[in-house]
């Protein structure tokens, strides 16, 4: 049996919130996957209850506070982070005895709105032709109008590239501060203030901020929160029509270029290369390893630290770290990666880390579970062969 780090750590340091966060991350992946499975099933059987649809805003409950979650759209559906936001939102809502609301923005979104209703006490549907695509000027304006109307205690959004463009502006217009990239949210029992923790200094430090002014506005790091469990009651769907027009749009879209769509955050295993990889030939070796790992894992992806992306050997969509993806695979194999702070912040959630590096002093070994000191040109092909043999 492998050393069970989780139980040992909990034994020694169960009172420390740092450890709790780490443990949470380590444990999380399995749970996320399990619950996501549930969500997908429920979507397929989701029933539509006509009665619960209420046009207009007459039925807004004013006797209770509310936690507002902004649904993150993905294609025609909902991105998985939405369920993490809801999970975090439900916890705060019960602490504050508030109701949990989810907000969807888009156009012709009644299907997805209906499916979402199973996860919250109420659903605000902002269905408008101008909201069909993410347009920060319009989204900020529409959300501000909604916030002014429904007066949420907190607004929870995903820490995504799109939201980087939205949340500061929404917060400013609401006269509050936004704390981005949070990994833990706690309501201070005696005051009801929100304590939110985020990694700073390349994840070497965790900082907890206290938000006093409502609405508490935060963005949450993907994979850091448990997803919501399916609820028995369906939330009420409320249609809200924001007053927006095209004149609010200050940025003109010329064209959109879709690049290779990589979902590193869904990978079960990641083989990532760094500065040590040097050239396309080195990259081919990593791809060989990925190929054989696919016999063991459902989804294996190539990742990279910043030097490989800067050298244009790997597209930026595969970058892992502070400005790239934050990942939480079962297995992370770091090849030729020294382990700079900016990279390490992206792999905190990885369950097991294997590092291959020629430099025994490389920082990556400090965060790895297994290490090999040696040249990847020899280690990787041998590893690949043996894995093939063992299957």
């Amino acid at each position, binding site marked *: 049996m492998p050393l069970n780090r989780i139980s040992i750590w909990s034994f020694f340091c169960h009172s420390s919130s740092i450890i709790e966060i780490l443990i949470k991350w380590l444990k999380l992946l399995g749970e996320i996957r399990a619950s996501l499975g549930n969500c997908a099933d429920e979507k397929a059987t989701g029933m539509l209850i006509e009665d619960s649809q209420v046009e207009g805003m007459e039925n807004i409950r004013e006797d209770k506070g509310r936690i507002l979650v902004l649904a993150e759209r993905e294609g025609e559906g909902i991105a998985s982070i939405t369920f993490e936001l809801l999970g975090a939102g439900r916890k705060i809502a019960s602490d504050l005895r508030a109701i949990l609301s989810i907000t969807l923005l888009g156009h012709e979104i009644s299907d997805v709105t209906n499916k979402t209703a199973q996860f919250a006490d109420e659903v605000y549907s902002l269905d408008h032709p101008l909201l069909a695509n993410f347009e920060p000027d319009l989204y900020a304006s529409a959300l501000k109008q909604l916030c002014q109307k429904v007066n949420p205690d907190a607004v929870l959004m995903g820490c995504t*590239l799109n939201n980087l463009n939205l949340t500061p502006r929404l917060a400013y217009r609401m006269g509050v501060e936004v704390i981005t990239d949070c990994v833990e949210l706690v309501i201070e029992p005696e005051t009801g203030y929100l304590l939110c923790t985020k990694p700073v*200094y390349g994840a070497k430090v*965790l900082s*907890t*901020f206290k938000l006093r002014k409502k609405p508490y506005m935060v963005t949450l790091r993907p994979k850091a929160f448990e997803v919501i469990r399916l609820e028995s009651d369906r939330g009420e769907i409320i249609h809200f029509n924001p007053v927006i027009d095209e004149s609010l749009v200050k*940025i003109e879209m010329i064209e959109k270029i879709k690049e290779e769509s990589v979902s590193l955050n869904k990978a079960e295993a990641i083989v990532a290369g760094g500065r040590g990889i040097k050239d396309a030939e080195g990259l081919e070796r990593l791809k060989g390893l990925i190929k054989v790992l696919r016999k063991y894992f459902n989804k294996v992806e190539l990742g990279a630290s910043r030097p490989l992306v800067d050298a244009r050997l790997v597209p930026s969509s595969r970058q892992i770290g502070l400005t790239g993806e934050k990942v939480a695979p079962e297995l992370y194999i770091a090849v030729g990666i020294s*382990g700079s*702070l900016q990279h390490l912040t992206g792999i905190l959630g990885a369950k097991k880390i294997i590092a291959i590096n020629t430099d025994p002093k490389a920082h990556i070994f400090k965060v790895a579970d*297994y290490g090999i000191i040696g040249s990847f040109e020899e*280690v990787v092909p041998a590893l690949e062969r043996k894995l093939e043999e063992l299957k």
Partner: protein
Amino acid sequence: MKPLQIVVCVKQVPDPEGPADAFKVDSEAKKVIPVGIPPVINPFDENALEAAMRIKNQFDAKVTVVSMGEKLAQPVLRKALAAGADDLILLMDQNFKDVDSCSTAYVLASAIRRIDAYDLILTGRQAGDWDFGVTGLLIAEMLQIPVINLARKVEIRDDGIFVERLCDDGYEVVKAKMPALVTVSGELGELRYISVRALQAVSKKPIKIFNAVDLELDLQKLTQRTIYNLFAFQDERQCKFVEGESSQEKGEKLAIFMKKEGLI
């Protein structure tokens, strides 16, 4: 035609590429203390400066670099002048200590308003220390100008500014009228090489320094960030090294290990 007025906002941070043990945490004082690593210009702000320099190569442009802090290291920020910026303005005041993003944006916006007819403001997408990624957007809100974030390419053409910006599934080409603010991502490219000679050449160049009074700031609007708790995050795992005579042997052993330890 008058020269383009470009403003670049830069922040001084402890070198984020520094080793992990260089950051000590004083939980009592709620401060991060960098040990033995020099302050640098925030890397994303260097990308923003590079964007400005590329425009200056093409057009008649004046580049003003603005930085704000409680104490700023002049030699560090002079690098911007060596890179080709025309003016360096430091905003220094005791009152700027540990202020939140909104206050920082307020100070910077107040300084920028004093720059005559600015056309373009460039900032880094986020700072390498507190990693909020909001200041640039807040400045644009305060100045009520269009904002484009996460730029990987910035170009000026006759009728406006054209930007390639990162988005979740690729990139977009967008356009805005100037004046506008653009936040720049690392994909744009690193700041050009700066020689020692270039640094020496600007070592005596005058720098403008303003404080809160000079900027006629309303001190009521400056609020400190309320840090409730600050602690070092140790994700150090016990690394088991796979030993062997050769790299090849180690590779094979690792595979066996992975099987045995249930990694695969």
